[in-house]
């Protein structure tokens, strides 16, 4: 169905997103305002697309002779919906956020948003790649916009850029190979599973996985965010929607590859499960108010891969219902994570605004209850990420676990075993992530602040967080209807109409509930809040109206000592030290002591004052450190061998390269 007027709106949205101009505070605010309006517009277009069908916007002929256009089908509309929800929140937040940072942030922000809007609505490789590359460069710019450009910041931004370009390279390979296969981009599934198809799959999985921050590339996710002081609105866009763009690319390519062999799903499942576990583990020991959500992003994108992996495995095993159910899980996980993570990052920005620090142990309740919107929104986001009912994250986590439970239906024992392992990893991670979220909410917002801590009220910021929290509750409670709403996206992915509900079998929304196989599992998200509500009203009525209950407020019991003296309260670091010590073989926990006192000559055990640090290490970082060192060594050798400044050697090198190209062209022709 063609609707030109929607195309115009879509184009306006893309243009609007680019329009965030640098300048004075007012100009910046106007820029963010335009971004907000454009985001709302894109949101409307995406919803309309999901409701009525694909839209086609402006069409033209590209430089390579391909027909190009901006358009949205069900799949891209779903991702546009998730992204524009995030952007609406971040843009509104940015208007209130007095970031005192380089004005260049606003333009990079607008560019990033526009680029993602472009790649989501692109109808050709070329447009997609243009969007992809603008996105990478613009977000690199955002990370660079941190206050105080120390070496560390620069290095963090550089790590981001390096991973981003590696990702582009892999995506380029995948896209080029796919072009060879089908000659199109949005054209239906290609048939046949040859080596080339597998190349496309592997390159896409690695390339887009890199953007999603899954293992073993999770360094690209946490390092730039945790090691730069990039403002929180930027972090939210990076962590929520850049990974969403990666997910979109992966979904798009996998969707177009057609009947998958079983090992694709297996590989995806394995990568996903490892990411889930690593992300949750590092989130639980993270001390950085933005690093912790960044690790959680690794976990959540791992969950998306797990769900998609189960879907592919199920399809390879001919279990269509399970495949569809897992697909719904993957879609819902994507949107639930994007929204919740936005709230968490915006909350981290609020906390930083109030306390001036990113260290959880230093925050220690500094932002306590200063804004009801902030507290409620953060709580909702954290609960959702910790998979607590009735929030969105709970529904998606339940669906993913349900589909993993049914891995016994796979025909090969390897796949069954893999499903089992992945299920254990997801369940373990669910426990660890609770530790992380309790830590974040507890120490940032609920902990009794030490005397003297003040929390300035930051107008508007908290409210935005609260609104996002409300969206999360809505997504969770209304999950059956949301799932119905996004069914066109799943249909577009599967290249087949997905009936809602699907019979009485492995089905999605069944009235008020979600059913995973008629005899298997049933969840009714709306019933949970209704039950909680009724119970609360009854309890409230009993104590309030039943009369006579006296409430006495007493100070916390600290074994008789006066509570809450500075330096005598538990730190967030101490809260998770148990995990650091228990899992020291994975976390590579290491205690570094620096003596600051004299050592007795006899070397006897007289204690001396010392400084102590308990460090954990991402083992994958060691690999990358080695890789960097090796690359530097090779480049150095190359530089010394080829480019020592001697003209003769240099000319010989050019000659050889030219000859090689000529030979290649001659042979290929």
């Amino acid at each position: 169905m063609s609707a030109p007027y929607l195309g115009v709106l879509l184009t306006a949205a893309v243009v609007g997103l680019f329009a965030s101009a640098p300048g004075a505070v007012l100009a910046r605010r106007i820029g963010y305002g335009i971004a907000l309006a454009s985001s709302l517009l894109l949101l409307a277009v995406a919803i309309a697309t999901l409701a009525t069908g694909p839209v086609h916007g402006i069409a033209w002929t590209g430089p390579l002779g391909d027909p190009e256009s901006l358009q949205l089908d069900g799949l891209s509309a779903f991702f546009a919906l998730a992204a524009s929800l995030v952007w609406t929140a971040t843009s509104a937040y940015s208007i209130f956020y007095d970031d005192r940072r380089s004005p260049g942030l606003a333009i990079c922000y607008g560019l990033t948003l526009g680029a993602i809007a472009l790649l989501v609505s692109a109808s050709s490789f070329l447009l997609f790649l243009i969007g992809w590359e603008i996105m990478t460069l613009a977000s690199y710019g955002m990370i660079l916009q941190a206050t105080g450009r120390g070496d560390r910041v620069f290095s963090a931004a550089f790590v981001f850029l390096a991973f981003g370009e590696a990702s582009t390279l892999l995506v380029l390979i995948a896209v080029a190979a796919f072009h060879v296969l089908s000659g199109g981009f949005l054209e239906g599934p290609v048939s046949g599973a040859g080596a080339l198809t597998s190349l496309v799959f592997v390159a896409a999985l690695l390339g887009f996985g890199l953007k999603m921050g899954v293992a073993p590339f999770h360094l690209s996710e946490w390092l730039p965010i945790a090691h730069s002081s990039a403002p929180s609105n930027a972090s939210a866009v990076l962590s929520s929607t850049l990974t969403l763009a990666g997910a979109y690319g992966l979904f798009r390519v996998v969707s177009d590859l057609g009947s998958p062999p079983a090992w694709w799903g297996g590989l995806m499942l394995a990568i996903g499960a490892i990411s889930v576990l690593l992300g949750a583990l590092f989130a639980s020991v993270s001390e950085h108010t933005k690093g912790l959500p960044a690790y959680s992003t690794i976990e959540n994108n791992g969950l998306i891969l797990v769900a998609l992996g189960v879907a592919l495995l199920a399809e390879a095993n001919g279990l269509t219902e399970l495949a569809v159910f897992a697909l719904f899980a993957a879609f819902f996980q994507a949107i639930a994570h994007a929204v919740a993570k936005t709230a968490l990052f915006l909350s981290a920005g609020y906390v930083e605004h109030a306390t001036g620090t990113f260290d959880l142990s230093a925050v220690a309740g500094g932002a306590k209850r200063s804004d009801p919107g902030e507290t409620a929104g953060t709580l909702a986001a954290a609960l959702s990420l910790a998979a607590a009912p009735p929030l969105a994250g709970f529904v998606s986590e339940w669906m993913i676990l349900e589909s993993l439970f049914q891995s016994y239906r796979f025909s090969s024992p390897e796949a069954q075993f893999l499903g089992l392992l992945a299920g254990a990893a997801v369940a373990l991670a669910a426990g660890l992530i609770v530790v992380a979220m309790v830590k974040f909410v507890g120490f940032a917002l609920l902990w009794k602040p030490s005397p003297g801590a003040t929390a300035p009220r930051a107008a508007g910021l908290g409210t935005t967080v609260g609104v996002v929290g409300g969206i999360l509750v809505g997504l969770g409670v209304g999950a059956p209807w949301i799932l119905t709403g996004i069914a066109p996206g799943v249909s577009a992915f599967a290249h087949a109409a997905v009936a809602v509900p699907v019979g009485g079998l492995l089905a999605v929304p069944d009235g008020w509930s979600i059913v995973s196989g008629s005899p298997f599992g049933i969840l009714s998200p709306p019933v949970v809040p209704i039950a909680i509500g009724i119970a609360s009203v009854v309890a409230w009525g009993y104590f309030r109206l039943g009369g006579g209950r006296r409430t006495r407020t007493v100070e916390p019991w600290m074994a008789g000592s006066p509570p809450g003296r500075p330096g005598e309260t538990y730190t967030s670091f101490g809260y998770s030290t148990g995990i650091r010590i228990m899992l020291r073989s994975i976390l590579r926990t290491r205690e570094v002591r620096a003596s600051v006192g004299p050592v007795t000559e006899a070397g006897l055990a007289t204690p001396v004052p010392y400084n102590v640090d308990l460090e954990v290490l991402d083992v994958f970082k060691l690999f990358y450190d080695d890789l960097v060192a090796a690359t530097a060594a090779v480049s150095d050798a190359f530089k010394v061998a080829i480019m020592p400044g001697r003209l003769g050697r240099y000319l010989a090198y050019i000659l050889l390269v030219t000859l090689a190209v000529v030979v290649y062209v001659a042979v290929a022709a």
Partner: protein
Amino acid sequence: MTRSGWEVETGDDPPVEDGKRALAYRADDGALALYNDYERFRSIVRTPKAPGAGGVRPAPVPGAHALAEAAEVAGYGTFTFPYGPISAGVPEAGKFEVRTYGERVLGLVPVGGFKSRSVPASVVGLPVADAGLRVERIAGNLSASHVSAFLAAVESAEGRPVPTAELYVRALAQELQRLYNHVRQIARVAEAAAQNVGLAQMHALGEEILRLQGSVFGHRWMFGALLPGGPTRRVEPADRDRIEHALGRIEAEFGALWSLLLESRTFVDRLQSTAPLSKESAISSGAVGPTLRASGVGWDDRLRAPTPPYTDLFVSLPNETAGDALARILVRGAEIQASLVILEQLFDRWPAEESITEAPESPLGPGRGIARVEAPNGDLVYDVTVADGRIRRLQFRSPSTANWPAFALSMQDAVFTDFHFAFESFGLVFAETDG
């Protein structure tokens, strides 16, 4: 110079600086000389001071200043965890300031003074018997040792001869109390290790010892029983037979429980290498008693600085070298058996003469006396100045006071859950530290 069992040797011991512990030692002989060092005792003994209107201010226990420095550990996420003064794990008023980054103990400072009743200051001017009522209530579960040391110091100061039978009664009381304290300490460790049957039966055994004390001395904690002017009971032959019979039962019962406890892998595993204290640390920190003996230093006042009746008895010296909580508990278990042997010898040699303690008819000359006694938890020293039958000055160094630094050292780098095993294996008492 020899002074009532107090050997003073100057030797080549290192000088003591600002009350800090002498650190260097060369060999066992050097260590033993250290334990005989009179100057050393003077540097760690508590001087009595009457508190002002605000009472005693809680402060790190004596000798813990070096540990207080360790508690200044800095680093990201470190904090001080206050434990006490009212804590269920330590059934006494006392506090520990634990420096930590969570889970692991980086430094631990015991804080005493919460239950200081100012006994040394309050007995000044009192007759010996009245002072004794307060001294035995410094630490109720160690009353026999405190009273024996106190009386021995007074007698040494006055130069008054003591009937041998009275010394035997004191030794009987001390050894019974040693049995009780060791049994209770083992029960507390069993409790920490959740050996519930073992702990209940050990506690039952402890109650039996208390009842034996009650029936022999008229008071379950032997308060008043050893003091001049008190109702000192003659331990008649019939009484002695009864005690011997009861001790036979206790011996059999303890033997059975002890072997069952040590057969339990979970119990032994939990104690092994928990809160270790090396021989060097034990000596340099000034540890005494079972703590010292568990770290491989064979010092026991009953053997190395004996006073009658121990001069006439065979005293074995249970010794361990590992220095961990298990070693300290093993030493206690072996000492229970050794004490039973000592009690047997006491009854075999019990003197025939009358053993009635009378208040001195005419106070003997004024003077200062020092006495040391091997209390259940270690070397206890009393230093008393008497004139006209009244106390002029009293100071003492309790074994707990001596052992706090060793405990704090052993807890470094331990984890929180080691605390109770460590604490109970040391047998520390805040009551006698605070005085």
